[in-house]
């Protein structure tokens, strides 16, 4: 774990440059460029509020905010994984020719997605007063679940990026896993909708604790219980620990398989 921190610090400039490169390329050749990072979630919000606010009325007030408060972090998670699962393989040419620390590639993918996540919170913050939903001081708590989410995502990323080097099927399987995971996480619904006797099953989902923190802070104006916060960090660090251990074990071998 020490090694991870040290290497990240050592290669911080490279990671940052690669992350910026990724963003630059993602928005290159589009007229609005970087604005898409803001527009994308904003337009999604319009659609969601139309569908759920006027057409399929859910018995939840300000449903758009209820949903987006956790959909945005989920999008970060899913997008980071989808991008970075290929991060080693797609940089194969580079890995085969330059002596470079391999961890910079998944790291850069995460960093570029963190920037996207932070940008996407801006339209959400604008939507809150527009919908006349109270703006809670608990927004200040958000850095904590963001941190837990980033750590968790990083761990998963390391693991899947390695697995994909050896079995390219992993990238495809991941897409299936992610869409199943989406529906088994209380994102479009609330955990209260689940019958009591099945709730324990949902609580096995490591993402539920961190997701809960986002929704409580933005939608309910509350802070999660201490044990819920602890659980989110325990899950995050377990993921990081396993993910990085696997990554470390195989990183010198990548060059022969990409």
């Amino acid at each position, binding site marked *: 774990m020490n090694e991870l921190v040290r290497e990240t610090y050592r290669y911080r*400039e*490279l990671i940052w*440059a*690669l992350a910026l*490169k990724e963003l*630059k*390329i993602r928005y*290159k050749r589009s007229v609005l460029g970087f604005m898409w990072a803001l527009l994308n979630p904003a337009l999604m919000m319009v659609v969601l509020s139309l569908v759920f606010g006027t057409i399929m009325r859910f018995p939840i007030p300000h449903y758009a905010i209820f949903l987006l408060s956790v959909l945005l972090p989920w999008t970060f998670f899913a997008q980071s994984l989808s991008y970075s699962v290929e991060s080693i393989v797609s940089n194969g*040419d*580079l*890995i*085969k*020719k*330059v*002596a*470079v620390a391999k961890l910079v590639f998944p790291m850069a993918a995460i960093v570029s997605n963190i920037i996207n996540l932070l940008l996407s919170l801006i339209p959400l913050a604008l939507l809150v007063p527009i919908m006349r939903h109270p703006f809670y001081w608990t927004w200040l708590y958000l850095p904590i679940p963001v941190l837990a989410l980033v750590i968790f995502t990083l761990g998963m990323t390391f693991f899947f990026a390695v697995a994909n080097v050896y079995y390219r099927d992993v990238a495809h399987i991941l897409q299936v896993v992610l869409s199943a995971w989406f529906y088994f996480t209380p994102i479009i619904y609330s955990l209260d909708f689940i019958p009591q006797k099945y709730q324990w099953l949902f609580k096995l989902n490591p993402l539920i604790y961190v997701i809960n923190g986002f929704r409580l802070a933005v939608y309910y104006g509350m802070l999660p219980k201490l044990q819920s916060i602890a659980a989110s960090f325990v899950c995050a660090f377990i993921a990081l620990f396993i993910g990085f251990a696997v990554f470390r074990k195989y990183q*010198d071998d990548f*060059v*022969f398989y990409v």
Partner: protein
Amino acid sequence: MSDMSEYKAASSAIAIRAENLTQRFRVIQERPDTVRELFSKFLRHTSTYHDFEAVKNVSFEIPAGQVVGLIGRNGSGKSTLLKIIAGVYKPTAGRVQVEGKLAPLIELGTGFHHELTGRENILLNGLLMGYSKREMQAKEQSIIDFADIGDFIDAPVKQYSSGMYVRLAFAVATEVDPQILLVDEILTVGDIAFQNKSFERIQKFRQSGKTIVLVSHAMAMIEAYCDRAILLENGSVMADGPTHEVAEEYKALMTPEAVGAV
């Protein structure tokens, strides 16, 4: 900076030390294309790969300031050895120690990204080679001057001609002032003027006492530049010594009779 001072102190010492280097590759002969093939392979337990040693038990020491030619026919392991020294491959066995900053001129422009401009690529490439942003910014102007590609420096590199591409890459790789240069058959690119400029630069590196490892099939070049040559054959060192002697052995190896006998 600290790298430099450490290096200076050890300048009479060894720049590259290779001890019993072996590099084994797994060659996958055929991939099962269908699920049915995969199953039948699995059931019959047939192996679809064999191991191949590209470099076998190679040891040598290169003192700082020496210019060494690495020669041998195609597939003898020269490029693999160069990649081990550059740190791209982690050897299966043995170890390699390198003293000082190393610049691999192996495949130029590898770290370039087509959508980024020349200027952006200078920074990215430098960071990939392990230099800091500050170092690269300090050297940016002299890199641009050497590459001599005019206003194209602020255009995406995908618009470059292949000559411009290589010039910029060569400029980035050499302008950063490395102590060790690994050169793999790249000096035949660009027009005559640029080739001369590159040779001049290599010559200057040589005169300023830098260590250079040169891989080439052009024996004239090896004999003109190198103090010493190492001849590789089937992954092992066949000869190691003064350039002209090793070059003779290489030529003997390449006579029609010898080649025909293999």
